[in-house]
């Protein structure tokens, strides 16, 4: 269970307003609380939509959940041609979450529709115009990106300090950003 203080700290982290000493505490809170981690994802999604940044990567976490739910089912239960009842709950939740995410993104981005006025277009890029080549690792599949991130961080954790200057080893992990 996360405290209100922890939630506020993570919220400040999402907004980039957390002090440097609080940043580490907020990250540690995220590590220990699944509830806060979910908040992190939701708040980011909303923030990106409000700022008009591409949000199609929101499918990443949901896709991973769907995949995990399917993988969690014993293979024998899928051989009779009927879906076991137990599968519908996580799958349904995942689909509902995806629809909620997409609906939220559409709803939040609508006020900046360029067709709505004569002001310069400052709103979100249409999803179809997102540049897959600019994704992390140049991979369109979020599961591949997540997997490579994990393998890289695991590698860096073992070799950090091996003649390389500390923070530099992680700069690529955090520094890489997809331009709008």
């Amino acid at each position: 269970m996360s405290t209100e203080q922890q939630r506020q700290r993570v919220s400040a982290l999402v907004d980039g307003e957390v002090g440097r000493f609080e940043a580490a505490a907020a990250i540690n809170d995220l590590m220990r609380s699944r509830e806060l981690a979910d908040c992190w994802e939701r708040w980011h999604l909303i923030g990106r939509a409000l700022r008009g940044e591409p949000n199609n990567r929101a499918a990443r976490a949901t896709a991973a959940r769907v995949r995990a739910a399917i993988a969690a089912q014993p293979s024998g239960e899928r051989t009779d041609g009927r879906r076991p009842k137990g599968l519908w709950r996580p799958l349904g939740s995942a689909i509902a979450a995806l629809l909620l995410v997409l609906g939220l993104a559409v709803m939040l981005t609508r006020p900046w529709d360029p067709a709505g006025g004569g002001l310069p277009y400052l709103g979100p890029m249409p999803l179809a115009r997102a540049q897959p080549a600019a994704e992390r690792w140049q991979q369109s599949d979020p599961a591949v990106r997540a997997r490579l991130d994990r393998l890289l961080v695991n590698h860096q954790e073992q070799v950090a300090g091996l003649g390389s200057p500390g923070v530099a080893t992680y700069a690529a992990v955090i520094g890489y950003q997809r331009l709008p």
Partner: protein
Amino acid sequence: MSNRLSRGPQALGFGSLSLALALWPCMLAAQGDHSPQQLLERMNRALEQVEFNGTLVYLHGQELAALRVTHRIQDGNTGESMLSLTGPVRALSRHADGVTCTLPDAAPLLVHKAHGRRGSMLRKVPLDFARLSRHYSIGRLGRFRVAGRHTDVVNVLAKDGFRYGYRFYLDQSSGLPLKVDLLAEDESPIQQIMFTEIAIEGQVESPILPAARGAPAPVEARPPWLTGRLPPGFRILSEEVLAREDGAHIHQLVLSDGLASFSVYLEPPLDGALHGESRLGAVSAAGGRVGEHQVTVVGEVPPATARRVLGLVDTPGG
């Protein structure tokens, strides 16, 4: 009398020379004229002994990002937190338990440190300059100001295309690297990391090279699934078996030439595996199915190195 008088200046001159020779190392130290090897060793120790926080910029190709960095030492262990100041908020924390990385579009990524793992020992490995000199040319390149501070510039240039070179801008006061360029074989920068402002607490005084501190010997036995000739200079530093989220085992080999490093992961096939090549900044990855396994090579090495190592993996059915 006259002899004594005439010998006086000679004696004074000889004494001065002797004194100068005796104090030469100290004079060098006072002037900051250390050898590049001493400066690099001092850099390594500074990262273990000096706390700092500041803002750095990360430049790769056309991409530019700013990061807030805090480096702390607690109970002899170093830790960092990094927070992106540009674009979507990304954050990373390295602490006694491992690494937590939060990216905006995914659940936090956790890598727990397995205490006692051989890999964690690599942090204490001193630089082996005799070995490095076979694959890198090491030299000083003068001085430069970074973040308003004076630095000594050290070049570590790769002698072949299997690794990148480095250019370190080392703070004269603390020994910390304030700017690090990753260089291609033609010395053009591939990636640059530079502090724009930094607050440093403490400094590393002695420039003298320390005695070797029991560096872990390379793993002599090569696993049967890694065949052929490794890129020159790279040796296996550790071999680990990790547990995957679904319980499957991942075999990890860490290879290094003393500066550059990469890991080879061998595991049962899975969704989300890399097939082909990929890059993240200066990090290269190559992956594919070999026999009944998925193999992925990841590290800060040129793509050709990752590709070559992937080609060395041979498993049953491969």
